[in-house]
């Protein structure tokens, strides 16, 4: 079972949901397809969606909500 990494396209702050009181886009264990949004990156006060970009199952987040990330940093991984 190989793991596939999902990396942040941008530097900024990572958010798991669209608003503080909204449910997260995805939770650990979810199945994802490549068009699914897994979170948002806030960069200079603007928000960009982060697509999974891959298909897989057993999603696992490696970055907590509201944590800073650098471009290319692994945000989550899935099993192929």
């Amino acid at each position: 079972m190989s793991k596939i990494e999902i990396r942040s396209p941008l530097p900024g702050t990572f958010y798991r949901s669209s608003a503080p009181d909204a449910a997260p886009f995805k939770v650990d264990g979810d199945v994802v397809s490549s068009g699914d949004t897994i979170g948002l990156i806030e960069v200079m006060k603007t928000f960009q969606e982060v697509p999974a970009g891959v298909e897989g199952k057993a999603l696992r987040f490696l970055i907590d909500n509201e944590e800073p990330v650098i471009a290319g940093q692994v945000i989550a991984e899935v099993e192929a």
Partner: protein
Amino acid sequence: MTIRSLLVANRGEIAVRIIKAAKALGIRTVQVHSTADADMLAVKLADEAIDIGPPAPKKSYLNIEAVVSAAKAAGVDAVHPGYGFLSENADFADAVEAAGLTFVGPKGDAIRLLGDKVAAREVAARAGVPTVPGSAGRISNLDAARAIAERTGFPVMIKAAAGGGGRGIRIAGDMADLERHFPQASAEAQAAFGDGGLYLEKVITKARHVEVQILGDGRNFIHCFERECSLQRRRQKVWEEAPSFLLPQSVRERLCASAVALAREVGYRGAGTVEYLYDETSGEFYFIEVNTRIQVEHPVTEMITGIDLVEEMIRIAGGAPLSLVQEDVTARGHAIECRINAEDPARGFMPGPGRIETLRVPEGEGVRFDTMLYEGYSIPPFYDSLVGKLIVWAETRDACLERLKAALENLVITGIPTTVPLHLALAGDDAVRRGEFRTRFLETWLETKFAGAPGKSAEVA
């Protein structure tokens, strides 16, 4: 009490600006910073720097306890809040004063009063400052709405009393519209906010955004003329000028006098800005709000009046009376400020934090560049995209535009995208030269003139 040491509770270019003003006054400076800002220019320029927390603003620059603790630990006399962050937070002003320190700005109560839109509108009305025509408060029924709309004229906005941030607003173009929308708006407001209360406000079409710089020491109040800030994108100012050159002199005098009257009404202390919409068809102006802090665009006022607003606000906070009377304030020439953002205007203004490879700053008479950039500096992604302000002054507006073009061409920033190409296009635009712009001008212009312009490129500068 004269201020001998000052903590700067901000970051970026304004922190640099405050430190320079403090140094000119012989004041020791302490700069707070987040862990992401340890290498920012203000940290290098300050006499002392204190780490107040993680990158997220709410954990550092918006953390009242962290900032006040740093101020106490550093043993400073005063705290300057800059703009944004905690600058208009009344609780912060109170916390600073409660710690026995001086807040560079008005008292917490004044910030609270002027920050409340309804209360500020009442203050303006008491001071005789015109507010946007509309209902005095809530309106109870359609008959009352009809009577108000007959008085104000159309179009009118039907606003939910409990709404905000653009929610719960409908526009009625005539009486039939009003009669149709009013019951629906009330039902919607009830459903959305649990409160069906409505009020009416006239829509000011073709409005310019004009604002007046005020200074007060609690007893004496003066204005430093007006700024024109109509060029905005998504409600953010992009380009500002002083003076508002098409404003008739008689209107300018009434406008500036009204801002002073408002300052006097609340016993204002510090530097502030009274914002207005100006309807040039009717020649009327209407109060919008008061900003109780230094503004991003304060340099255009400094360039035409020769007054250092940041130094003046520090002196006032230290207990000194205003160093000027109204007759001392004279305006000369014309100034324009371009906000240089780390955004790519060719890609929908996508922000682009990154490392500055080359920085070449234009110099010469009437050219000023307020910035926190230096070669090798990495702009963090956690804060806003403003990286500098190019301010140009000349004897006339036409000469100012020419000098601005040359200055923009000589401003070289590589390593990040910037809005310099946008400003070059604006500086060369006929409508901008004629001053034919209002608050909605720029967004339309971007779609019709800029997006379609051949040869637009992020490589222009």
